[in-house]
């Protein structure tokens, strides 16, 4: 229900919305990420649910003003449960011509477009490759949208003229002006951002004051100028009671690992080599020296994983983090961890491939690499995170499995959830599952030599720490004799060891929770089976379709190797199974092979997540087909 408010002699229509998608688009240097995250945090503090999607170019400073240099930040916030950053934008903020060109096609019909007209001069239009003489602000391109043309650059200059700052610094504050304007438009408080600016620029008062001034100027501009007659009201979300924080996937992965190490009473060692989009995990963990976290920036990806294997061998929780190309380089070393049965967590923040591919874009095309990418029979457990906050649980679970089952574990996240953020009702440290990472201190073979590969009922070998008297033994990459671990080239023994290592990984399925139906009936006509970061879009699509009367269900996998024991039974109850993936059908291949069901593939490999709408259209199409 929309209402009318009258304030300061101005009549404003207030539109009430359940959720709103805002997209900030500008040049890499325009501060769009900061603007977006300030808007996001303010919404979160107000109590709205939300999901974000930052998108940046692969180049650090692509030529200014070009489409290649556009940096975008998308946030979907609302009073209902939000699982995706949204398909289309209600509001597009375009700081320059390139920003408009790059993102106009995703603005909703009738949506609001706010442009900085200073970014639409001849030079900017040329850089964005608009045809000579064409200007989208004047040629009818934007008819059908509500367009707010603001000369932000000029207004900021006017507002800050008496600050004594140079033109460059003044121009840098234009994102704050825009943010202030949006705060007015969405009836949000400026307090959070003022606090942020004060903290960040406290030591440079002139910059601090200029930013706050620009922010207020933007807010006041909305309030006093006659042309802006629409505001939006979005209520607080009905989220489960509790204490929340905002978190990105990479941040969640980092602290999940810290928590796992501490719960297991082990030191955390990260061997890593910088790579987009995984580096933020390295950055985050590097801040925790005081907690004994050791981060080692290695000379390359191989050194990174091998140092982590060495650390694990010496008694730490060894972790390595990377993305597809780096993971490919680490594969041989993962084989070493498989055959030596050394605990290790390998985090793969997937990005578009192959090769350098799309470094800053998202993809799920490393699933088969994760499960089958090594030479020889080299099984290892693989788990996949579904949302930014889920990265915490999955990192913790990956470490638990690695330590309790003496195996390398791969955790798959991707660029979408790694950089995206959401509100997180974080757990207390006490509530975290215990992790049993005991070392043996006495021989398991009294009277004889210690048997490093004598297994327990789960097929797990004992973990030792070098420095323990009487347990001296050698491990290595050569095939080993059962129990003694001595080098053995015996053919029958090799086959036995291959089976033992496989059985150990298979048995992990005994200790993980069963598969369940997330939304819908357990015998629905169609099951949408997903894994990883497609969770939000699938959940939203399926729930909306159920509300519209369709018989569809959603099952989502965290454990992709081994599968949960009951997964076959769960899937068998549906008439059809459809698998949306950001690849050419990798999970579908595994599901078809294992359960012999004709799973229907639905694939998108554009470096972008599925939209809810795409999924809904496809689901309805399948439901309506025979």
């Amino acid at each position, binding site marked *: 229900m929309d209402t009318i408010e009258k304030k300061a002699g101005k009549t404003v229509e207030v539109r009430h919305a359940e959720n709103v998608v805002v997209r900030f688009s500008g040049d890499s240097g325009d501060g769009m990420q900061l603007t977006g995250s300030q808007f996001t*945090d303010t919404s*979160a*503090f107000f*109590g709205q649910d939300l999901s974000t999607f930052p998108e940046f170019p692969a180049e650090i400073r692509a030529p200014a003003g070009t489409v290649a240099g556009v940096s975008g930040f998308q946030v979907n916030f609302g009073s209902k449960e939000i699982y995706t950053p949204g398909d289309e934008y209600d509001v597009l903020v375009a700081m320059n011509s390139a920003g408009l060109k790059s993102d106009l096609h995703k603005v909703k019909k009738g949506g609001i477009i706010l442009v900085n007209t200073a970014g639409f001069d001849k030079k900017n239009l040329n850089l964005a490759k608009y045809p000579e003489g064409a200007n989208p602000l004047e040629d009818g391109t934007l008819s059908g949208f509500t367009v707010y043309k603001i000369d932000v650059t000029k207004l900021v200059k006017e507002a800050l003229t008496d600050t004594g700052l140079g033109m460059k610094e003044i121009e840098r504050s234009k994102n704050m002006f825009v943010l202030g304007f949006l705060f007015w438009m969405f009836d949000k408080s400026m307090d959070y951002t003022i606090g942020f600016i004060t903290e960040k620029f406290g030591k440079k008062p002139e910059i601090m004051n200029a930013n706050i001034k620009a922010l207020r100027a933007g807010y006041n501009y909305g309030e006093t100028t006659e042309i802006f007659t629409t505001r939006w009201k979005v209520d607080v*979300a009905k989220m489960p009671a509790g*204490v*929340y*924080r905002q*978190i990105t996937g990479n941040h969640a992965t980092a*602290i999940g690992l*810290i*928590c796992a190490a*501490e719960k297991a009473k082990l*030191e955390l*060692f990260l061997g890593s080599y910088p790579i987009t989009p995984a580096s933020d995990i390295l950055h985050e963990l590097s801040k*925790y*020296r*005081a*907690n*004994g976290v050791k981060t*080692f920036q290695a*000379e*390359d990806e*191989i*050194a*990174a994983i*091998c*140092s*982590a*294997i*060495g*650390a*694990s*061998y*010496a*008694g*730490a929780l060894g972790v390595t983090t990377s993305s597809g190309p780096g993971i490919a380089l680490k594969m*041989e*070393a993962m*084989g*070493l961890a498989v055959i*030596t049965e050394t605990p290790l967590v390998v985090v793969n923040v997937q990005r578009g491939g192959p090769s350098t591919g799309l470094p800053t874009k998202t993809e799920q095309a490393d699933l088969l690499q994760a499960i089958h990418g090594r030479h020889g029979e080299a099984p290892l457990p693989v788990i996949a995170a579904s949302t930014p906050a889920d990265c915490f649980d999955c990192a913790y679970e990956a470490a638990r499995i690695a330590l309790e089952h003496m195996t390398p574990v791969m955790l798959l996240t991707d660029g979408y959830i790694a950089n995206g953020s959401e509100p997180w*009702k*974080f757990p*207390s*440290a006490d509530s975290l599952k215990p992790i049993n990472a005991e070392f043996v201190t006495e021989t398991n073979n009294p009277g004889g*030599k210690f048997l490093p590969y004598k297994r327990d009922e789960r097929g797990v070998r004992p973990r030792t*720490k*070098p*420095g323990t*008297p*009487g*347990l*001296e033994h*050698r*491990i*290595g*990459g*050569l095939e080993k004799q059962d129990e003694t671990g001595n*080098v053995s080239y015996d053919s029958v023994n090799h086959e036995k060891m291959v089976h033992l290592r496989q059985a150990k990984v298979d048995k992990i399925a005994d200790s993980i929770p069963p598969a369940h139906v997330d939304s819908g009936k357990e015998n629905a006509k169609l099951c949408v089976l997903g894994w990883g970061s497609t969770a939000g879009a699938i959940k939203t699509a399926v729930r909306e379709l159920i509300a519209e009367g369709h018989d569809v269900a959603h099952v989502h996998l965290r454990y992709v190797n081994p599968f949960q024991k009951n997964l076959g039974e769960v899937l068998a109850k549906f008439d059809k199974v459809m698998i949306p993936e950001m690849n050419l059908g990798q999970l579908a291949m595994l599901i078809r092979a294992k359960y012999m069901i004709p799973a229907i593939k639905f694939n998108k490999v554009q470096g972008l997540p599925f939209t809810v709408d795409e999924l809904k259209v496809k689901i309805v199409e399948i439901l309506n087909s025979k």
Partner: protein
Amino acid sequence: MSTETTAPVKKTAKDFASDQDVKWCPGCGDYAILAQVQRVFPDLNVPKENYVFVSGIGCSSRFTYYMDTFGVHSIHGRAACVASGVRATNRDLDVWLISGDGDSLSIGGNHFIHLMRRNFEIKYLMFNNQIYGLTKGQYSPASEKGIKTKSTPMGSVDEPFNPLELAIGAKSTFVARSLDRDPKHQQFVIKRAHEHKGTAFVEIYQNCPVFNDGAFFTYTEKETKKEECLFLEHGKPLIFGANNEHGIKLDGLKPVIVDLSGGASTDGLWIHDETDRMKAMILAGMFDNPAHAGHMPRPFGVFYQEKRATYEDDLHAQIEEAKAKKGKTPLDKILSGDKTWVIA
């Protein structure tokens, strides 16, 4: 109750031999190195359980299986990385890295240089036989240019590395060279390497009787050894020859051989100074082909040693500093972060 305490029985070389059959080729130089390491270890005063051997891939790297200590036989070229992780985690461990010229200088070349500059406390024994043995006889990055092997039937066109120059160039803090066929010298160098607080790089000339037999006989065999080897001793003049009749002095940066026969004075000879990096580089550069007339002798012993903080000590110092400055952050604080809000 008796108040007597019995001193722990001193270990012997045998205590360090594992129960595995040693499977190098008959006559391989690796046997001699294994024997010297096992002989020296009882004297090093390290609890046996604290030794860790880490090796890569190649004939030399099987060494790990023959020591009755903790050990990891890792993957090709990467022993330096595994060993770095071990030392970063536990500074009580006495870490030995066993590698060959192919493992260290070719596939592991990147890790080799980075280990040197980081200076983890690791004893690095590189067995140099100037050939790939385990893959049956291809030339290595240490092989002489022109060597005819299975992969270079017309002779290699690769210029070889000078491993010691590479190590010093990569900021190694301890650089030495020894010989498989000189047990005493090996023991001396191994002990010196063990005393070093940092990465101690020891190149050991090692004969491969199958694929590169006699590569170092000029330096190891009685007939030529004294004429061709220059044994370095800290603080002593550089003298060599069957009857110590040659000395070396420096003409600017150029080493020059002087004749000491007939009792000529040793004044003005180059006095070896292990702490002089520039001179160590000149010594490492004495790498002439012994077939060339007027060549310099090949030096053996400790070329260079420098005191520099190890990576792991600096890392722990940072941890201690961070703990002292801000203290450990409780898990609940890490979980909540700085900014939270409450939904009632």
